[in-house]
């Protein structure tokens, strides 16, 4: 019995002379929620496709639930996936679309209605897929991914098009699945959502791994920030100068100054600002969240 759901070593994919994924290595333990993040074009979907046997890697190896990715027939019956949005037959109903996949995978047909109910489409199952809203399509995609009662669930942007209530429901669903032992490997642009539900993070940038490990470890590596606001906008630049004079990196962002410094430097900054004739309206030490960490590590902002 393997103790990793996903294990990837030196995995690359080259299209013509461009490396979409470049020699990546990471592992995802069993039974956790793992966020898979990276800017557009960083290679997330290409990686997922390789793990699902849809495209052949140029180099490297990968194992899913202990089986090599060269033999997807050995593990895909235990994997549920939705890649690059929900794709279904527009002229068939949601129910019929799931029936096609249930028949194909040899899954019990009773699961179809159960899953439609589970994702909140119980009363719209007979409607044609082409009449569904984006959020409903997304829910149907999640239901399709759950058909095999998967040990590993791979979802690519599952909350796209969902309203806040839907996002919350998906978040709860993924957490429940993880609690029941399913490993969830999920990519999303909603980093605040991933921060709440993920135990693990794999971060990609330009096809390369920037970080892979427990989310707590990632946050612990980040320097805390002190956010300072002054009564006068014109004083913001002076605060930056005070911080930089003390050897701290500082930038103006959203009408406030963000200073990379430990929390205990906040009183020092407060006094220095007072001495310089600046009245601070706010002074708050803050640990960076996943979004700020992401931008810092991927260099997107």
């Amino acid at each position, binding site marked *: 019995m393997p103790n990793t759901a996903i294990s990837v070593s030196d995995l690359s994919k080259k299209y013509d002379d461009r490396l979409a994924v470049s020699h990546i290595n990471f592992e995802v333990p069993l039974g956790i929620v793992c966020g898979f993040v990276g800017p557009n074009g960083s290679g997330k979907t290409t990686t997922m*496709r390789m793990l*699902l*046997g*849809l*495209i*052949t890697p140029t180099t490297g190896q990968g194992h899913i639930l202990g089986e090599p990715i060269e033999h*997807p*027939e050995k593990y*895909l019956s235990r*994997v549920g*996936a939705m*890649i*690059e*949005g929900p*794709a*279904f*037959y*527009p*002229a*068939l109903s949601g129910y*019929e679309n799931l*029936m*096609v*996949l249930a*028949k*194909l*995978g*040899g899954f019990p047909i009773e699961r179809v209605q159960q899953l439609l109910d589970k994702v909140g489409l119980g009363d719209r199952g007979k409607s044609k897929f082409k009449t569904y809203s984006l959020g409903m399509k997304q829910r149907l995609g999640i239901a*399709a991914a759950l*058909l*095999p009662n998967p040990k590993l669930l791979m979802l690519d942007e599952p909350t796209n098009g969902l309203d806040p209530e839907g996002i919350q429901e998906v978040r709860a669903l993924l957490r429940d699945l993880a609690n029941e032992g399913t490993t969830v490997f999920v990519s999303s642009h909603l980093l605040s959502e991933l921060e709440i539900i993920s135990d693990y993070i794999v971060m990609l940038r330009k096809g390369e791994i920037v970080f892979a490990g427990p989310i707590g470890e990632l946050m612990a590596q980040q320097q805390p920030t002190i956010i300072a606001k002054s009564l006068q906008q014109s004083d913001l630049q002076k605060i930056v100068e005070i911080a930089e004079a003390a050897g701290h990196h500082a930038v103006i962002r959203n009408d406030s100054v963000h200073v990379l410094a430990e929390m205990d430097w906040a009183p020092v900054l407060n006094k220095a600002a007072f001495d310089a004739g600046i009245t601070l309206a706010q002074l708050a030490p803050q640990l960076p969240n996943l979004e700020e960490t992401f931008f810092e590590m991927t260099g997107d902002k």
Partner: protein
Amino acid sequence: MLNVVKAELRKLRRPTLFFGTMGAAIFFTGLITSFIYLMIDSPQGNGDRGRSISREVLTLASGSVNGFASVGGFLGIIALCVFAAQTAQEYTYGTLRNLLIRQPGRMKILIGKLISMVLFGLVMISIAAVISIAISYILAPGAKVSTDLWFTSAGFEAIFTTFVNVTISVVAFGIVGMVLGLLLRSPISAISFGVLWILIIEVLLMAVKNSLQSWLPGAQLSAIASGGSPDLTYTHALTVGGIYVAVGAIVASVLFVRRDVAN
């Protein structure tokens, strides 16, 4: 494999596709079969490309299936369109990735799809056979054609032989459609190319040089349906047509199995 067939049949049975296809088959069958009897004395002919099918020919034991054999080529074009659309749409809808996640055996997907579409084609051929023979039987007295030999043992043998020939032709046309669908990955492109080639380009080529008839794929497959013609023997059509279909199927299968699914 059986799971693939069951899954594909669920897609093929949707009313717009099923009744639309059967409606087109019934329409062409009715039109072409009626034409043979209603235009029997026309100097412009009552058969394909102005050929005349005489009372003497229609009175033979094989007379009941003359219309059915003539419509074989049209049924083939319908099959080409259905097989091409059903194959190529997996790429345009992006549903191929769902299929391959649930059944990673790519040859199983391909063969399962083919079997289900052949079953669909058999339903279409059976309906066309019944409609054509029924219309022939109804119109024969008005056209002064005797039906005495139609339902003898020789007549039933002719019905069976024609059914087999039309089935071979329709399945071959369907495989050509499937190959086009796999190569072009777009229903519109695959259907346009296939239909334009068979109905326009081949006809023009044969008008310029009649001997090309012996080598063009559409002509071979149509000739199989009608059991051969004076210009094209059944054996030749079966051999050349078989080679075209086999080569196309092998190339498309290898591509399908090896190609990355990136859409």
